[in-house]
């Protein structure tokens, strides 16, 4: 049974609770032990552009503490996952920087150590648990439901550090969905941006981006969309209405789920256990198909 430190990051505990809820109910049932990780703070990624050193320091800190515990990190957020792996790589190759950061950490009695492995939810599902195991746990197959997988940009980029998915031909996400009985398919610009990163600077453009994306997905005849990044979810789920009104296209309306929510549904868990009541997008249509009601 594999053990991971559950690293939530900042978005999930502040506005994307459903992700955490679904992860906590799904992964243990699939034989993954989640160990609390209270010492971990923010990964620093948002600071990247403002204060590089602060960013590096914060990620290095998390890695060091985890290494001391001798457990791999499960990063739910694409951003956290990228940040931690980037720093691992950065410090491995930059001796001077490494020493500098080590000194900073010493001040709070932390010894720099980059050994801890970093894994994203998708990897835990696909690489550790494996589609076969997932298949075996399916009680309520998503037959006849066509789901657009949307890994999110940082699941694929930057390619100079190990990423969970292939940047041009992401496959793992779809193979997990297939294991749940869902239909999957190709649509253009799957690897494209969701807009979240520019939301604070230009909400308009952010909404245009997500609107276009949701439109294509609908055009390609998908019944729903799924991601495993809290930022993407924010855009494709919570911002659907805004996107709709921004481009004035009523057709933009599609159920959005976290991958773990869909896995949970297929495993027969109740909507509550998966925090589905927190999804903003119109997910009822799909729940109906599965004969599940949000409020039983």
């Amino acid at each position: 049974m594999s053990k991971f430190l559950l690293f939530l990051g900042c978005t999930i505990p502040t506005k994307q609770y459903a992700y955490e809820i679904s992860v906590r109910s799904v992964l243990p049932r699939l034989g993954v032990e989640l160990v609390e990780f209270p010492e971990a703070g923010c990964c620093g990624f948002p600071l990247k552009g403002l204060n590089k050193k602060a960013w590096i320091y914060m990620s290095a800190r998390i890695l060091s503490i985890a290494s001391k515990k001798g457990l791999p990190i499960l990063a739910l957020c694409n951003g956290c996952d990228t940040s931690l792996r980037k720093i691992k790589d950065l410090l491995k190759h930059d001796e001077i920087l490494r020493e500098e950061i080590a000194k900073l950490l010493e001040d709070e009695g932390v010894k720099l150590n980059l050994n801890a492995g970093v894994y994203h939810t998708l990897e835990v599902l696909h690489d550790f648990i494996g589609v076969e195991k997932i298949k075996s746990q399916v009680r309520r197959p998503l037959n006849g439901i066509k789901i657009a997988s949307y890994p999110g940009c940082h699941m694929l980029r930057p390619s100079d550090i190990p990423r969970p998915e292939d940047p041009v031909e992401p496959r793992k996400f779809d193979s997990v969905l297939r294991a749940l009985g869902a239909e999957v398919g190709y649509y253009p610009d799957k690897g494209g941006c969701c807009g979240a990163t520019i939301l604070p600077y230009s909400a308009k453009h952010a909404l245009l981006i997500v609107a276009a994306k949701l439109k294509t997905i609908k055009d390609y005849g998908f019944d729903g969309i799924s991601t495993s990044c809290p930022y993407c979810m924010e855009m494709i789920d919570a911002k659907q209405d805004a996107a709709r009104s921004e481009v004035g296209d009523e057709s933009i309306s599609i159920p959005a789920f976290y991958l773990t929510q869909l896995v949970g549904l297929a495993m027969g868990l109740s909507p509550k256990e998966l925090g589905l009541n927190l999804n903003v997008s119109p997910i009822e249509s799909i729940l109906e198909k599965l004969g599940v009601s949000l409020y039983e």
Partner: protein
Amino acid sequence: MSEVRIGVYVCHCGKNIGGVINPAKVAEYASTLPNVVVARDYVYMCSSPGQSLIEEDIRKYNLNRVIVAACSPRMHEPTFQGVLKRAGLNPWLLQMVNIREHDTWVHEDTPDKAEEKAKELVAAAVARAAHLYEITTEKFPVIKSAVVIGGGIAGIRASLDLANAGIKVYLIEKKQSIGGKMAQLDKTFPTLDCSQCILTPLMVDVSRHPNIDIYAYSEVVDVSGSAGNFKVKVKLKPTYVDWSKCTGCGTCVEKCPGRAPREFDEGLGVRKAIYFEFAQAVPRRPVIDPKHCLWFTKGICRVCEKVCPVKAIDYGQEERYVELNVGAIIVAIGYELYDLSRLKEYGYGRFKNVISGLQLERLSSADGPTRGKIVRPSDGREPKTVGIVLCAGSRDEKHVRYCCRFGCAAAIKHIYYIKHAIPDAKVLVFYTDVRAFGKGYEEFYQKYRSEDNVFFIRGRPAEIFEDKDGSLIFDVYDSNTGQLINVKADLVVLEGAVVPPKDWEALRRVLKVSCDPGGFALELHPKLRPFETTSDGVFLAGAIQGPKDIPDTVAHAAAAAAAAIGFLAKGYVESVPYLAVVNDEVCSGCGLCVSVCPYDAITIEEREGRRVAKVNSIRCKGCGACAATCPSGAMQQNYFTDTQIISEVVSLAGGAK
């Protein structure tokens, strides 16, 4: 040898050396060194006045050692050895000093250090030269026959030239028919004459030529021996058809129920499980593909066996080996297309309508899968908008850095194919540069770029996406206009990069041929000896030396053949000068040299009651491994004796005194 009399000659090589250091100073310094009788500098030592200068000095000062400080010995050692010969000196009394490649060309920015280095190198040479001695080589006869590896246009041309010169040729082709890539082309640029029409007659000539034996569906697996007397081991892969009985009537192919994608059509067409590679195949003999044959896969059928009028089918056939004994080897295995699916952003292999240039050739060929109709593989529709991407993988750090040298011209030809078949089609060519360098290429380019609805856009597509209807959408930044263009194309053609064939790596190792950064065969000299290799008797023809279009390939092949003919016509090869030599007085016959010799060239023999090592001068290739192993110093290597090397090392380590 009696008193050592050394002449030192420092070359300016124009400004190459003279522009950085002062050769006169180096010569002046040299004149102060022991045993140096005369030291001079001259602007071009390799020039005829330069050479005669040395020649005269040798006579005038009766020199018995000559040191030339100039370019790399790999460049001009033979030249100056010639000078010594003409002056009646043994060529191995020459010592070259490399003050160009190893000095002035790399230390230009520290000229004083470069000059100091030149002096030290000369000093070391003087120290070494004192220990040089005369070396005589033996001659061995060559076998007047050749193996040509690869039956493409290069191999065909080389084979014919050799055969016409009366040399027995064994042509080895790994496919079941010769013809190579050229056979797959519809037309050739810039003349647009039909590729098959000019190739197939040559193929027939080859098959009919009394001096040429074709070994089709065969591969070279090992090469032993050496220049003039190679033993080439050839593997004949099982065809499951007895070609000696087969008449090539084709009944078996007609009746065969098995189906598979046709390699010759780059996977676009379909062939049978027993098949000819293509209609005009030479030799016209079929092969069973066990992966798709019902008998091999399911144990049923055997139709071909039943219908064969001459009972040539032989399911039990196994691979066979033959050993060919030849004097020379010509490598003409050509090139291979880069795996375009590795350019993931272009979706080749994922999107049906993204095809390679070679696939377009097949679509456009009269004997192709569509009988010459250009259509979209996804739905057979006629493409109205076609994008052609140049340098797909070429000149790209992520893929291959070099230029494919025919993509541009091919693309222009492809414009012609499309506009000729679909006059109202729109063709967008995405290029980095258009390199129309060959004879008639520029005119060819000008003609077709000015056709209606042909647009040359300077930029590479970003990620290509597939639309619902199978057409392709992508953005291109046009660096000429500074515009970002959104394109929707029905068909995208990638003019892909070229790489050496997969099996080259293994082959080059048995041939002992090194490779360039791109992996292609390394020629002996990029300008002066582009079709010879560092392995004597092994020659290069065509694209294996580097990407080439057909005209260049043919020229290169003919040149290689000429070089091989010259080599064989000479009639003999000489033993290497760098032979291992034993000092019988010191040798105790411990036999360790025998243990390390890679050529089994050393034996221990009894001589007046003692055991002593003996070197076989035909087998010895002069690597010196034995000399570096000999515990007593009895084994030495000509021109690289312990004393010679150590005196050089000591001088260099100590610096100029």
